[in-house]
């Protein structure tokens, strides 16, 4: 039961994109086509699963002081593996994801989960958390891409939507549409949960996944800034 809860946590209650507000860059950039969204989501899930397992298995070996660089190397390793697999077996996906495939390295969801969850929990729990968070990311990307693709290009997963294909709002697939749909989705989550879901209404240093490791936070005004 507890294990199931861990798995489902990432899907809804702690959805990485809509509630924790992590990994905004790929969410905005890739969500123009539903098929790309699935590809990106699954690639990130594989990296997240691998890095969560590796980091939690090594959590007693990695010294605390150099943990962030170690995590980055581990994550970059998994990203390279995924990159090579995608290039070999899904070259079309590689083309459409472009720069955002190697940029999974700096996706805050992955470093964030390593720092918030994997370095404190057992291998099995971390694996479940990784799958849950990854699927939560995929699901959000997919929903957002569905909205943008149907409204913006009048297609969905290769199918043509009868009326909309001739009356598409092409700005939805461009950058402004991304920001707008993302803003509206977070507002919807806010509304449905009556403001409880997003406990960090202000997006600042304190919400950064590397906040705990960031020594600057204590001396700098950026920490206070976001609390105020």
């Amino acid at each position, binding site marked *: 039961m507890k294990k199931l809860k861990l798995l489902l946590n990432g899907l809804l209650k702690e959805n990485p994109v809509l509630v924790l*507000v992590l990994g*905004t*860059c*790929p969410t*905005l*950039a890739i969500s123009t086509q539903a098929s790309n969204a699935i590809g990106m989501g699954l690639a990130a899930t594989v990296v997240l699963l691998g890095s969560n397992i590796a980091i939690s298995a090594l959590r007693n070996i990695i010294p605390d002081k150099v943990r962030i*660089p170690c995590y*980055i*190397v581990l994550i*970059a*390793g998994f*990203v*390279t593996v995924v*990159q*090579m697999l995608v290039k070999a077996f899904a070259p079309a996906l590689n083309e459409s994801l*472009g*720069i955002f495939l*190697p*940029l999974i*390295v*700096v*996706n*805050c969801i992955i*470093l964030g989960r390593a720092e918030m969850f994997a370095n404190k929990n057992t291998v099995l729990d971390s694996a479940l958390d990784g799958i849950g968070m990854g699927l939560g990311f995929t699901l959000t990307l997919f929903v957002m891409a569905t909205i943008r693709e149907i409204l913006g290009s009048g297609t969905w997963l290769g199918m043509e939507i009868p009326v909309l294909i001739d009356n598409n709002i092409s*700005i939805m697939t*461009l*950058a*402004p*549409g*991304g*920001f*707008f749909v*993302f*803003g*509206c989705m*977070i*507002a*919807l989550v*806010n*509304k449905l949960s009556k*403001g409880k879901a*997003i406990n960090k*209404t*202000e*997006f*600042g*240093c304190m*919400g*950064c996944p*590397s906040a705990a490791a*960031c*020594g*600057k936070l204590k001396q*700098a*005004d*950026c920490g206070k*800034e*976001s609390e105020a």
Partner: protein
Amino acid sequence: MEDLIHLDFKGLVVLLMSAVFVNNYVLQKFLGICPFLGVSKKLDQATGMSIAVIFVMLLATAVTWPIQYYLLDPNDLGYMQTIVFILVIAALVQLVEIILKKYIPSLHSALGVYLPLITTNCAVLGVTILNISTKYDFVSSMVNSLGSGLGFFLAMVLFSGVRSRMEGGETPEAFKGLPITLVAASIVSVSFFGFAGVIENLFK
């Protein structure tokens, strides 16, 4: 190395201008959204962060470009790009911070806060990888990085102005905080479409 893109002076100016206005990293390419949303609340912070980003982008490009072409490519290690670049950038940022702290403490106190945040900023890793994948030569890469950094600066400064105006406004309950910021970003992003035709026709 022969198939790299070489640009003359005019080409470089166009590249710089379009990197700032048309292919704006934040508003059109969605790179570096976290600092864009997080640090754009006050003008002085937005400026400090952007200057640090420009600096690190230039430095990172100056280091990663030779690594790619003189170290990775000749040894057939192109697939190591992601790992090597992120490590080089992380080490570089750390090094810059130590040097600044020792020799220019005044600059360190102004920019130092933002340096650790830049390590995991996807705009910096993004620009270095894009310079390689679009096959720019060294000079064009540096110009592209400068343009991208300036574009980041422009977006940050513009957006911090928008946000300070927004503070007094009455926002619907559900939209308070991040959602309204994103909607505002969407409108700022629309304004950048206006530049697309300008740059293309200016240097015909």
